[in-house]
């Protein structure tokens, strides 16, 4: 028992706290650096330690220090309890979602739930509370409107996000992430990895769109609209704001992890038979391969963010309800028919 607890704690420490949180911090830097580089600028490069600038990699540290020492402003009339609670509510659910993500073969998952994806949906649904309460507790009409936009958008896209994964569940016959990963280890016709993106390409596109909308990032950043419309965390400063920011980046990683797991074979290395290679190194390689896929998908999301301009709010809603939702249903139907025919 003790061994199990210690091992789980170790996995949480290694995967969630070290890998994910660190990655989220680095992503704040990546985001700014990437936008700069795409726009032919240099980007942040001034923070330095002992004169070493390291391409501005110290900026996340500087930001963190700044967030700690800045005034934690609470607007007059705000509900203090909820105001402080909201950022935490926004951050915790995406962190919990990592529990069922297998980052390596065998036991390298924090909790191997049979209901894996259902757990993820359930827990991510909590994120809406962070957004809504944050806006509501601020006692600011603009923040309130922002949080209403956020809640409506997240609920809308949650539906299609769930539905367009059904195709994957049908194909692999399971909602457990571990089993889905295992299913992707095979090769089709002897040469093509049976990854989710291969068997469900359409489902992948739909999932990506829905997931980015769910995460409220550009081009779906209407709840926040940092550059001109005012969003739900407008009243937040210091750590409260930093926490909201961090939760956003953690969600980027969650989406990358889930996409890697469901559509890119998780920790599987194609054409390499783990049974045929020796011992521990293949496991290390597989974990590294999983990390590489996650990093790539994070990068990919950011590239989209800095490519596509923002939608209008009515476009966001009609895209969710009138396009993504019907297409997900069609996808399910088509998948089911094909599976029935094959079987």
């Amino acid at each position, binding site marked *: 028992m003790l061994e199990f607890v210690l091992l789980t704690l170790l996995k949480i420490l290694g995967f969630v706290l070290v890998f994910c949180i660190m990655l989220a911090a680095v992503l704040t830097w990546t985001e700014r650096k990437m936008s700069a580089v*795409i726009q032919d*600028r240099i980007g942040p490069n001034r923070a330095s330690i002992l004169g070493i600038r390291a391409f501005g990699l110290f900026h996340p540290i500087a930001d963190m220090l700044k967030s700690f020492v800045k005034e934690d402003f609470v607007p007059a009339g705000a509900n203090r309890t909820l105001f402080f609670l909201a950022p935490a509510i926004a951050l915790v659910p995406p962190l919990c979602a990592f529990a069922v993500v297998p980052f390596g073969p065998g036991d390298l998952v924090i909790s191997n739930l049979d209901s894996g994806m259902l757990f993820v949906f359930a827990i991510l649904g909590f994120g809406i509370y962070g957004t809504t309460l944050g806006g509501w507790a601020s006692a600011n009409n603009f923040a309130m409107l922002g949080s209403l936009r956020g809640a409506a958008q997240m609920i809308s896209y949650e539906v299609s996000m769930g539905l367009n994964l059904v195709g994957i569940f049908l194909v692999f016959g399971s909602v457990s992430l571990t089993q889905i990963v295992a299913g992707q280890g095979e090769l089709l016709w002897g040469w093509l990895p049976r990854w989710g993106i291969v068997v469900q390409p359409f489902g992948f596109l739909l999932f990506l769109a829905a997931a980015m909308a769910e995460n409220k990032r550009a081009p779906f950043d209407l709840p926040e609209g940092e550059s001109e419309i005012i969003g739900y965390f407008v009243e937040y400063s210091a750590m409260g704001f930093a926490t909201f920011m961090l939760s956003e980046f953690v969600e980027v990683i969650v989406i990358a992890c889930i996409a890697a797991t469901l559509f890119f074979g998780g920790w599987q290395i194609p054409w390499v038979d783990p049974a045929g290679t020796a011992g521990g190194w293949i496991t290390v390689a597989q974990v590294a391969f999983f990390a590489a896929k996650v990093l790539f998908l994070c990068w990919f999301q950011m590239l989209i963010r800095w490519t596509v301009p923002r939608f209008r709010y009515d476009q966001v809603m009609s895209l969710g309800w009138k396009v993504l939702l019907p297409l997900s249903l069609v996808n399910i139907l088509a998948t089911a028919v094909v599976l029935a025919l094959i079987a």
Partner: protein
Amino acid sequence: MVKVKVVERPPADLVVQSWVPELWKGMKVTGRHFFRNVLTGKGIVTSQYPEARRPYPPRYRGKHRLMRREDGSVRCVACFMCSTACPADCIRIVAGERGDENEKYPVVFEVDFIKCVFCGMCEEACPCDAIRLDSGVHRVPAYTRADELSGKEDLLSLGTLSVSRQGGEFK
């Protein structure tokens, strides 16, 4: 009659509306910039300001300066041509008696840099090459309005001897 050319909105067909090819096109552009700049840094146009300064163009004007006579005194004769020509009305002159054959000189000569638009009208209006906008010295912003006033001593400190002849006689 102005010819009006009506440009039809390009039809948003299914391919465009599916977003995927369009997104791909856009990502090719951003991706190209990304890889080019990450790998070679060639496209980056930022200059690192305090360390690397872009040279001013040769015709950069900078602050005004008041030119000097051979004896080092101010060349200006307080004729008010500059302040009359100034579109911002930012030159204040109080004229005084020099007591020699040159008669008039500015006791006070103030340019209000908070109003000045650096148009050079004053320089153009000056009949005796007394005020110039060619110092190339950047105007330093100040904290108070009073500090934006640049007085005679300040303007004169940038001044040099003028090459044009005083008196305008034919020779």
